């Protein structure tokens, strides 16, 4: 790793690494070697980096289909990620998962689901198990604003509050569910809704600021530990790319390019050219090695088709 001189640089490095990994995916995608959908986190990296800077290896994080950023920020290995995207036997899940189902339990990354909202309750259940055994652990579930419209989100908040479970509910609010803006979907306020269940919430408007997010996560995780209560953290963020795929789709008319431009004008990963230049070479070398690992790995065979079914 390059010479890192401050907390800001450390977080910047992690965020830039995620962005460069996804830009490599965009570069590779036309080759059709990644033959499955990718939901890119570009624009949202700071949320993952801010949170994971405060997590320990054995803190469990339940993620979703837009999961590259959290997977990498939590320490998930990069070569196995690319091998998984390539559908190779050396991938995280032997090529059976692909981009939408990332998991690395040794690094506390629990399984991601492509069905929106469906892993929120898993964090609550894991917390219940630890509480029964009297363990001092914290569980985090990450989801988008669309997931908060699912019944399971409401059910999970209620249960976590009712049983005083140490769960951080982290909502990445990018204002879009696939192509639908918030205004077409929600008649409720997240904070007021959580309050109805007796759950405190914190709102961060500047979701590009990983330093601020890191500090807020430290504070919130500490409170969850002390109070043994769930907390909701809502972070406003911005999805720069289309819902699924490597491109942009502003011509479709469901969102304004100006919104993304305004966000980019504040995004350190767009602005800090000095650090980009400083860190890119080392990160690129790591990425190239990971891609090479994926390229040179074998595909699964018929011997793998029916393993791990039961």
């Amino acid at each position, binding site marked *: 790793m390059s010479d890192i001189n401050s907390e800001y640089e450390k977080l910047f490095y992690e965020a830039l690494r995620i962005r460069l990994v996804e830009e490599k995916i965009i570069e590779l995608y036309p080759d059709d070697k990644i033959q499955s959908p990718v939901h890119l986190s570009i624009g949202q990296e700071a949320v993952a980096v801010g949170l994971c800077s405060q997590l320990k290896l054995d803190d*469990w994080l*339940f993620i979703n289909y837009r999961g590259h950023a959290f997977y990498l920020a939590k320490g998930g290995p990069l070569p196995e990620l690319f091998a998984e995207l390539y559908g190779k036997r050396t*991938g*995280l*899940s*032997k*090529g*059976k*998962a692909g981009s939408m*189902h990332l*998991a*690395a*339990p040794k690094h506390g990354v*629990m*399984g991601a*689901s492509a*069905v929106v909202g*469906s*892993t*929120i*309750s*898993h*964090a*609550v*259940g*894991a*917390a*219940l*198990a*630890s509480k*029964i*055994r009297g363990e001092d652990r914290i*569980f985090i579930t990450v989801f988008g604003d669309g997931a908060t419209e699912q*019944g*399971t989100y*409401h*059910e*999970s908040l*209620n*249960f976590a509050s*009712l049983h005083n479970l140490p769960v951080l509910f982290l909502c990445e609010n990018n204002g879009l569910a696939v192509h639908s803006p918030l205004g077409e979907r929600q008649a409720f306020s997240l904070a007021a809704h959580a309050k109805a269940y007796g759950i405190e919430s914190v709102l961060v408007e500047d979701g590009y600021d990983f330093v601020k997010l890191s500090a807020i996560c430290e504070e919130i995780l500490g409170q969850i530990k002390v109070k043994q209560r769930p907390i909701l953290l809502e972070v406003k963020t911005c999805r720069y790319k289309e819902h699924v795929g490597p491109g942009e789709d502003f011509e479709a008319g469901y969102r304004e390019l100006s919104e993304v431009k305004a966000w980019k004008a504040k995004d350190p990963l767009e602005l800090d050219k000095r650090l980009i230049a400083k860190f890119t070479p080392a990160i690129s070398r790591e990425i190239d090695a990971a891609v090479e690992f994926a390229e040179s790995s074998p595909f699964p065979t018929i011997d793998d088709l029916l*393993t*791990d*079914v*039961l």
Partner: protein
Amino acid sequence: MAMAEAMEDPRTLLIGQGVTDFKGIWGTTTGLAQKFPKRVIETPLSEDGVAGICIGASLNGMYPINTHIRADFGLLIFNQLINLAAKYRYMFGGLFEIPMLFRMVIGRSWGQGAQHSQSFQSLLGHIPGLVVLMPSNPQSIIQSYRHARKNHKGPVVMFEHRLMYELEFEDKPNQDLLNLFGSRIDREGDHLTIVATSVMVLEAARAADYLSQYGINAEIIDLHSISHPDHDLIFNSVKKTGRLLVADTSWLPYGVAAEMSRVIAERDPSILKRPIKSLGMQSAPCPTAKTLEDLYYPDVCDIVSASASLVKGRENHNIPLPPKQAMTDFYKHFKGPF
């Protein structure tokens, strides 16, 4: 009793609507909440959320047993059950194991109506990654619980027929004859094979007793494992008898009878002396009125009639039918409203 035994294991988490209340899921959970207050948990009416909570608890070392006092309520967990639990091991390439048990109770008769009576074994037997069981008697339920808890690392769905809670039986702990896979011969016979599920095994046994008076010896196969039946056992029995009747608790289209027909047809349909017959619920939602309900479900009379037709080779078999009697009247302990 089976639940009490399960709770002795500190990993067991018994969770579901009604597990702590005074009715205790027909007495199966009574008193356990007092003994194990942290691990016997009453739930909000949030089936989907609770099923996901069970997956999370299982990932974190517990053995959740999630109860549904009607299988119909279990429909609300199909996202977690089918999209998540059934796939959790495969989809992540074997990174995770999620041992857990879902108990789904099938209601029947005494006006249970359209939403308290359904029997979804074929829906779930269709899904790779699930073990789906239909125990045919209380002892089989207990043995299956024990086996699932001790030996299986994935999700098991148990469809328990409510009528069985009323039956008396003797548990033989050292005879774990039934596991999660395979089927068993309930009774041997030569003239036809009756493959039956759940309470239809009991009805088939009554029918076989009756038929024996008329010189017909039925072989009964208790299918037991819906997801993993013993194909060889079924095929060899039908090869011996040449005749197959399937008696299931659910609807016929795309169901257990269709699957049994596939087993025979794909291997060697020439072993059949007669076309296969099948019995199940009529193709309608379950009606509430008792007169309609008695017409709706297959019973011992239908099994006798279908068996006699198969063996005699004609619909007009000339064997008198036993008197028509509702199953709940015969297994007479049951009365409503629960």
